[in-house]
C-alpha cells in the first residue's frame, strides 16, 4: 500500500503509527468505474492469473513509478550519479523484486508497467 504516496508493506507496520497520514490501498485507486491507468494496463496485458498478488503489484508499481520520476536509482543502475536512470525492463524487474508472483506472470506485469509508465499522471 501507499503511505503519503510511498509504497510500503502493510503487513510490516501498525495503523496507529500512521495516524493522520494518507493511506491508499488498491480499493482507493479507481474513480468510480474509471480504473487507474495501472489497473487498466494490468487488464490489457493480462498481468495476473490467480490475482493473489495483484493488489500489491499494482500499488507497488504506482509507488515505483513515482520513485523513478524523482530519479531514484536501483541496484542495477550502472551509473549511480546519473540523476534520472532510464526505466528499462531490467530496472523494472529489479525495482519490483519485492512483489513475488506465484503464477509467474512477470513478463505481462512488466509490459503493463511499461505501458502505464508512458501515461501522464
Amino acid at each position, binding site marked *: 500500500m501507499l503511505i503519503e504516496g510511498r509504497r510500503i508493506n502493510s503487513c*510490516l507496520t*501498525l495503523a496507529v*503509527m500512521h495516524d493522520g497520514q494518507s493511506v491508499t490501498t488498491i480499493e482507493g485507486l479507481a474513480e468510480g468505474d474509471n480504473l487507474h491507468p495501472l489497473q487498466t494496463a494490468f487488464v490489457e496485458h493480462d498481468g495476473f492469473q490467480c490475482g493473489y498478488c495483484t493488489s500489491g503489484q499494482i500499488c507497488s508499481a504506482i509507488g515505483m513509478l513515482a*520513485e523513478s520520476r524523482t530519479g531514484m*536509482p*536501483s*541496484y542495477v543502475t550502472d551509473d549511480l550519479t546519473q540523476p534520472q536512470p532510464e526505466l528499462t525492463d531490467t530496472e523494472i524487474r529489479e*525495482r519490483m523484486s519485492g512483489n513475488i508472483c506465484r503464477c509467474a506472470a512477470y513478463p505481462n506485469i512488466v509490459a503493463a508497467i511499461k505501458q502505464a509508465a508512458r501515461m501522464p499522471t
Partner: protein
Amino acid sequence: MKAFTYQRADSTAHAAAAAIKPGAKIIAGGTNLLDLMKLQVETPSQLVDINRLPLDKIEETPDGGLRVGALVRNSDLAADSRVRQRYGVLSRALLAGASAQLRNKATTGGNLLQRTRCYYFYDVTKPCNKRNPGSGCAALAGFNRIHAILGTSDHCIATHPSDMAVAMRALDAKVETLNHEGEARVIPIAELHRLPGKTPEIETSLKSGEIITAVTLPPPPPGVQVYRKVRDRASYAFALVSIAAIVDSTRGRIHSARLAFGGLAQKPWRVPQAEEKLASAAADTVSFNAATNAVLDGARGFGGNDFKIPLTRRTLHSVLAATTRT
C-alpha cells in the same frame, strides 16, 4: 502476537527514558521487529514509537563528511545525490538490501540493529542461544548454508544480515547515541556489533536506554568504490557473501584498499592485515592471494556453509581485479 501498549515519543530523551523500562522496545521502521513480534521471538509489553522525532536529516559535516540521522529511510539515503556521488559503495549496498517497499520504511539506526535471519532464531520450537540463552544452537549441526564462517563460537554461528552496515564499516562510520540521562556517545562502527562468544544474546555495545541518533561518515577515502553481493537469487535476498571495497590504484599499483565483508560473521568483517597486504603492492594474483588468505585466516565451515570459503576467495579476487583495472 502478544498484547502490548503503544506510545509515541515526543523527544529523544523521552524515548530513551521510556526504553529503559522492562519490556519496553523502541520501534522505528519496524520491518524486522514486527516480524519477530508476530512469531513471538520478540515479546515487548510496550512499544515506543520514535518515527516522528526530528532525526531524519542528512547534513554536511565541517570536515567534508555527512551526518545521517537515525531515522533517515534506507531509500532516501541511497537516493541522496551526495551519497550517490561521494559514497557510491553505501548507496549500492543500501540498494542491494531487501526490497524497495522495505527500504522505504527501514531506517538507518534500525538497519544497524536488525537481528539475524538464522532460521533457528526465528523458529521458537528450536533451541537458540541468542533467543533463549543456554538452550543450545540448532544451527551448528542443522541447515547452516547461510551461517557464519568467521568469528563464530560454540554457542552461535549466526550472521549479521545488513548490507548497509558492511559499506559503513568500509567507510569507518561512527555511530552517535544518546542515553536516558541525556549523555551523548560516539561509537566507531567497528565496535558497535559484538561477536557471539558465550553471550550471543548480547549483539551490540549499546546499553539499556541508549538510542542511536545518527551515523556520521568521514570524508570519502580516495579510490574506486564497489559493493558486490553474491546471493541465491538476483534480487531481494540476503548475502551469502558481500564485499564493500574501496581501492585506490594507478596503473596496476595499489596505494590503499579497504575491504569489509558481509554474510561471513555476526558483524561486518574487516581484516587490517589483508588491507596491509594490498597497500603499495602490485595488483596481481600474488597480492590478491595474500589478502584473501589474511581475510580467511581462521575461517571454519559447519557443513552447509563450507562453500562460503571458496566463494569468498573468488569474489574477493573478482572485486580486486575489477577495482584495479585502471
